[in-house]
C-alpha cells in the first residue's frame, strides 16, 4: 500500500466512523445537486431564451446610435419604449459592419407602437352604405365598386340597408331592456326619439330622396349609441421585410403571403391577430378547445367557466353583423341544432355558447361550419388596407395606409405573447409614421419647392433674406376659395394613394434613410463578445456613432431575468455551502481533538507535520469528492431524465423562455467542473483550520495514557 493509499484509507475509514460525516456529506450532496440541476436548467433556459430572442427580433447583436438618450430595450423597459437617436447613415454603417469577418448580415430596424381603432359595426356598415350610394351616384372611391353593374349595386345597397335596419332592431331591443331597469329620466329623450324615427318604415321609404341627409342622421344620432369600438395597441417593427425573413429563419408566414420584395406592406403577428382581431366568441371557443385538449375541464376550471359565461353574455358582436336575412338563417340553423323553438337569436346564441366538456367539440365544429361563414371572424382581413395613425417624434399625427399581406409567427414561439405581439412593417411606412424623411417625402418636397419657387433660407441670412431690401421670398397672400382636394396633395394625401402601396423600392432606397437600430447576424455565435468589441472599435475608427450590444443587453429586463435567477441560485448554493463549511469545520475540529493520541502517536513514530496536514485535508477532500461526486451523478441523472421527458411550458409566457412548448435541459460540462471546484474549495477551506491545529499536536500526547 502506498503512502497516498494509506492516507486515503485512513480518510475513508474515519469517514465511516463518524455519523456527522453523513450530515456533512448530505449537505455537500444537496448543494452540488442543486447547483448542477438548477444551474443546468438556468443554462438551458438561457440558451433557449437566447434562441427565442435571437431568432425572433434581436439577432445576435444589436446596434443603435451612441447618441441615444436611453439604452436599447427591444421588449420595452420600465418606462415604455426607450428614446433612441436615429441612425442617419445606415448604408455606410451597414457596409462597414458587414465588412467585419464574423458578421453575416445587418438588418435595419425600428420599433414603435400605435393605437388603432377597429370602428364599431354601425360605423363600418354605414360607411359601406355611403360608399355604395356614392358608387351609384357615379363617384366611387373604390375602383372595385365602380366596376359593378347598377343592378348589382342596387342589390348590395338593399342588403346593406337591411343590415342597418337589423342593427337598429337590436338597438331597440337593448333600449327596451334598459328602460325596464332604469328610470325614464336616465335615458336621453333625444336618443329614444332618434331610434324611434329610424326604426319606422317612413324613414327608409324616404331614404333615397335624400340619401346624404339620411346617412348623416344615422351617423350622427345612431352610430354614437354603439360605443364598443375597440382600441388596440399595435406594436410593430419596421424592417427590410425581405431581409428579415431571410435572416430570422424561424419566421413563417401563416396566413396570406409575404410582402412582395421592395414593397410597402404589413404582416400581423399571428398571436396578436388571434387575440386582438378575432371575434371574441370565436377566440374564446379556440381557447376552450385548447385548454380541454390539454386536460383542463370546464367543469372544474374557473378561467374556462369565465370564458363560457362571457361567450353566453357577449353575443352582440355576432348579432350586429347579421342583416335580417342572415339573422333568420342563423336563427333557423340554431333552432334545428339546439332543438329549440325560441325565435330570439340572442337567446339562442346564449344557449348555444353554454358549452360543457361534453358538447364543446360539436358546438365549436358547428360554429365554424355554419355560423362563421355568415360573419367576419376578424376585424382586419388579409388583403385589407390598414390605416395606422401614430404620433411622430415631433408630436404631429401621421397616418399611413399599409396593405395587410398576411400573418406570421416564429416556429416554436407560436403561443408566446412576447414573440407574438410585434407585427412587421416595411421600413418606408415605418419612417413615415416615425416622422423621418423618406424617399417619397424627399421627392415631394423637391417637387413642392419647384412648384412654389420656395428657396432654402439659411439661419445666418434669414433676417436679410426675409426682411432685407430686395427680398423676393415673401409672397402676397390672397384670399380665395379653398379647394381641399387640390390643396392637400401633400404626403398625407399621397400616402393614401394606390400607387404608393404598389410602388417597388430598391434596396438602396430601403436602406437610405434613418433606422433606429439594426440586428447583426453573426457567422460564429461563440465569438459574440469579440465581434461586439470589433464593431465598437470600428465605430470609433470610422466615426460611425453607433453602439453594439449583445442580444442579452438589447432585450433589457428580459435578458437580465436569467442573470437574476443565476444570482439567486448562487446565493442559495453559497448559503448551503456556508452552512456546510461551518459544520465541516466544527466536525473536523471535534474529530481532530478526539484523535490527538493517534496523531501524537503518528508524530512520535516519525510522521512529519506535513503528513498530518495532508491526512486531515485528504479526509475532507474524500468526503467532498465522494458526496459531491454522488451529487454530480444524481444531478446529471436528473438532467438526463428531464431532457428525455422535457419540461412542458406551464403557460404561454414560458413558451418564449423555453423557445417552444417544451424545455429540453442539458447539463454542461462547465457546470460540472465548477461544481467540483466549489466542493473542493469549500471542503479544503473549512478543514484548513482543524488541519493546522492537528499539525500542532505534540508527539508527547502519545505518551499519555488513554484519554
Amino acid at each position, binding site marked *: *500500500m*502506498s*503512502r497516498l493509499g*494509506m492516507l486515503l*484509507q*485512513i480518510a475513508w*475509514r*474515519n469517514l465511516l*466512523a463518524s455519523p456527522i460525516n453523513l450530515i456533512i456529506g448530505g449537505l455537500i450532496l444537496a448543494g452540488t445537486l442543486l447547483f448542477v440541476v438548477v444551474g443546468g436548467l438556468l443554462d438551458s433556459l438561457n440558451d433557449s431564451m437566447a434562441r427565442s430572442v435571437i431568432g425572433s427580433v434581436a439577432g445576435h447583436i444589436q446596434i443603435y446610435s451612441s447618441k441615444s438618450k436611453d439604452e436599447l430595450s427591444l421588449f420595452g423597459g420600465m418606462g415604455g419604449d426607450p428614446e433612441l437617436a436615429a441612425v442617419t447613415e445606415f448604408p455606410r454603417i451597414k457596409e462597414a459592419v458587414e465588412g467585419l469577418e464574423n458578421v453575416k448580415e445587418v438588418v435595419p430596424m425600428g420599433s414603435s407602437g400605435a393605437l388603432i381603432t377597429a370602428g364599431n359595426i354601425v360605423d363600418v356598415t354605414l360607411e359601406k352604405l355611403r360608399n355604395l350610394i356614392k358608387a351609384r351616384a357615379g363617384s366611387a372611391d373604390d375602383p372595385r365598386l365602380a366596376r359593378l353593374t347598377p343592378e348589382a349595386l342596387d342589390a348590395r345597397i338593399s342588403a346593406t340597408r337591411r343590415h342597418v335596419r337589423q342593427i337598429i332592431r337590436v338597438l331597440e331591443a337593448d333600449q327596451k331592456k334598459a328602460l325596464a331597469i332604469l328610470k325614464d329620466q336616465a335615458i336621453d329623450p333625444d336618443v329614444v326619439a332618434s331610434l324611434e324615427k329610424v326604426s319606422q318604415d317612413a324613414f327608409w321609404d324616404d331614404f333615397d330622396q335624400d340619401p346624404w341627409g339620411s346617412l348623416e342622421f344615422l351617423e350622427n344620432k345612431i352610430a354614437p349609441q354603439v360605443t364598443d369600438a375597440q382600441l388596440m395597441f399595435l406594436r410593430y417593427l419596421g424592417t427590410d421585410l425581405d431581409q428579415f425573413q431571410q435572416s430570422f429563419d424561424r419566421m413563417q408566414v401563416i396566413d396570406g403571403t409575404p410582402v412582395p420584395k421592395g414593397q410597402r406592406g404589413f404582416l400581423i403577428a399571428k398571436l396578436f391577430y388571434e387575440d386582438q382581431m378575432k371575434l371574441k366568441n370565436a377566440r374564446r371557443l379556440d381557447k376552450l378547445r385548447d385548454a380541454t385538449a390539454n386536460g383542463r375541464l370546464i367543469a372544474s376550471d374557473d378561467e374556462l367557466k369565465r370564458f363560457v359565461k362571457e361567450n353566453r353574455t357577449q353575443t352582440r358582436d355576432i348579432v350586429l353583423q347579421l342583416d335580417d336575412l342572415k339573422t333568420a338563417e342563423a336563427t333557423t340553423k340554431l333552432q334545428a341544432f339546439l332543438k329549440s323553438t325560441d325565435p330570439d337569436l340572442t337567446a339562442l346564441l346564449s344557449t348555444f355558447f353554454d358549452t360543457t366538456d361534453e358538447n364543446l367539440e360539436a358546438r365549436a365544429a358547428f360554429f365554424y361550419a355554419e355560423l362563421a361563414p355568415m360573419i367576419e371572424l376578424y376585424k382586419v382581413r388579409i388583403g385589407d388596407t390598414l390605416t395606422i395613425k401614430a404620433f411622430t417624434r415631433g408630436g404631429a399625427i401621421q397616418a399611413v395606409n399599409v396593405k395587410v399581406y398576411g400573418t406570421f409567427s416564429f416556429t416554436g414561439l407560436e403561443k408566446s405573447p412576447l414573440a407574438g405581439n410585434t407585427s412587421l412593417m416595411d421600413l418606408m411606412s415605418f419612417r413615415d409614421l416615425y416622422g423621418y424623411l423618406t424617399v417619397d417625402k424627399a421627392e415631394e418636397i423637391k417637387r413642392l419647392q419647384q412648384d412654389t419657387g420656395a428657396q432654402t433660407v439659411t439661419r445666418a441670412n434669414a433676417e436679410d433674406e426675409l426682411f432685407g431690401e430686395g427680398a423676393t421670398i415673401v409672397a402676397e397672400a390672397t384670399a380665395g376659395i379653398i379647394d381641399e382636394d387640390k390643396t392637400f396633395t401633400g404626403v398625407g394625401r399621397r400616402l393614401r394613394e394606390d400607387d404608393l402601396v404598389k410602388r417597388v423600392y430598391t434596396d438602396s432606397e430601403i436602406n437610405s434613410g434613418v433606422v433606429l437600430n439594426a440586428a447583426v447576424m453573426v457567422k460564429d455565435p461563440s465569438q459574440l463578445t469579440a465581434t461586439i468589441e470589433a464593431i465598437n472599435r470600428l465605430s470609433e475608427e470610422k466615426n460611425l456613432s453607433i453602439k453594439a450590444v449583445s442580444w442579452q443587453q438589447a432585450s433589457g429586463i428580459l435578458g437580465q431575468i436569467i442573470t437574476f435567477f443565476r444570482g439567486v441560485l448562487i446565493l442559495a448554493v453559497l448559503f448551503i455551502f456556508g452552512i456546510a463549511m461551518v459544520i465541516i469545520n466544527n466536525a473536523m475540529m471535534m474529530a481532530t481533538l478526539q484523535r490527538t*493520541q*493517534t496523531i501524537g*502517536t*503518528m*508524530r*512520535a*513514530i*516519525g*510522521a*512529519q*507535520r506535513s*503528513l498530518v496536514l495532508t491526512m486531515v485535508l485528504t479526509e475532507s477532500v474524500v468526503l467532498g469528492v465522494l458526496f459531491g461526486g454522488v451529487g454530480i451523478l444524481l444531478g446529471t441523472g436528473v438532467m438526463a431524465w428531464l431532457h428525455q421527458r422535457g419540461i412542458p411550458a406551464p403557460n404561454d409566457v414560458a413558451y418564449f423562455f423555453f423557445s417552444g412548448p417544451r424545455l429540453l435541459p442539458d447539463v454542461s460540462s462547465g457546470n460540472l467542473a465548477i461544481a467540483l471546484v466549489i466542493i473542493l474549495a469549500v471542503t479544503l477551506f473549512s478543514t484548513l483550520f482543524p488541519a493546522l491545529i492537528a499539525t500542532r499536536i*505534540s*508527539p*508527547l500526547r*502519545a*505518551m499519555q*495514557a*488513554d484519554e
Partner: protein
Amino acid sequence: MNSIVSIRDVVKEYELGTTVVQALRGVNLDVQKGEFLSIAGPSGSGKTTLLNLIGCVDTATRGVVQVAGRDTARLTERELTDLRLNTIGFIFQSFNLVAVLNVFQNVEFPLLLQRKLGAKARKERVMSLLEQVGLHTHARHRPSELSGGQRQRVAVARALVTEPLLVLADEPTANLDSETGNQIIDLMKELNVKKGTTFIFSTHDHKVMQHANAVIRLADGKVLARESAKDAVAHALSLGEAPTAEARA
C-alpha cells in the same frame, strides 16, 4: 564509544501555573548498544520524563541529551522527527495502534513514512516481524479485534519494523495481566538477543524488572543507582514489604 544514549546533567522543569516543578534534577546516564535496560522507580519519579527526552519527543531544560551521537537540543523539529523515525522504536503503555488500520498496516506505517522500501520488501519485512511476534495469521485484523496482549505484540512489531538502534517502551506491561506481560517482555528480550537492538523500558513491576541486564533506579528526578536486576528486585521487594516507605518515595 559504544553509548547509544548519553545524558549529562539533565534537568527538566515544568511550569505548573506559577510554580516550577522539577521532574528531573541533574540526571547522568549512558546506555550501551545492545543493552536491555529497565528504568524503575515509583510514580512521579521521572521515568516517563526521562524516556521522553531519550525518545526525542521532548527537550531538556538544561544539560545534554545525545541519542545515536546527536545532541537533541541542536536539532530542528523536522530533524528530531527524522531521528525518531529512523533510530528509535516506540512501545506505548496503551499500545497506541491506529484504530482504522489493520494489523499489517499498523506495522507497515513507519516503513511508509521512511519511503525506503518498495511494496514487496515492505510486505516481506512486515510479515516476517508478524511471524516473529506470532501474529502473521492476524495480519488483516483490526486492533479492535485483538486482545491486549496481541495489540502490544503488534506495537512491538511496529517498533521494530524500521530496525531501529533503540526501542523505548513506557510501562509496556502496565495494561496487561502478568502472564501476558511476561510474554511481551520475553518477546522483547528475545528480539534484543537476536537482533542486538537496545531496549530501554520503564516499569515499576519487579517481575518485569528482573528480565533486564541492568536497572536504573530513579527517585525524585534523580538516578539513585544503576544496579543489576537481582539487586533491583530485592530492593523493590524490600520497599514492597514496607509500603509506607514506597508511598513516601
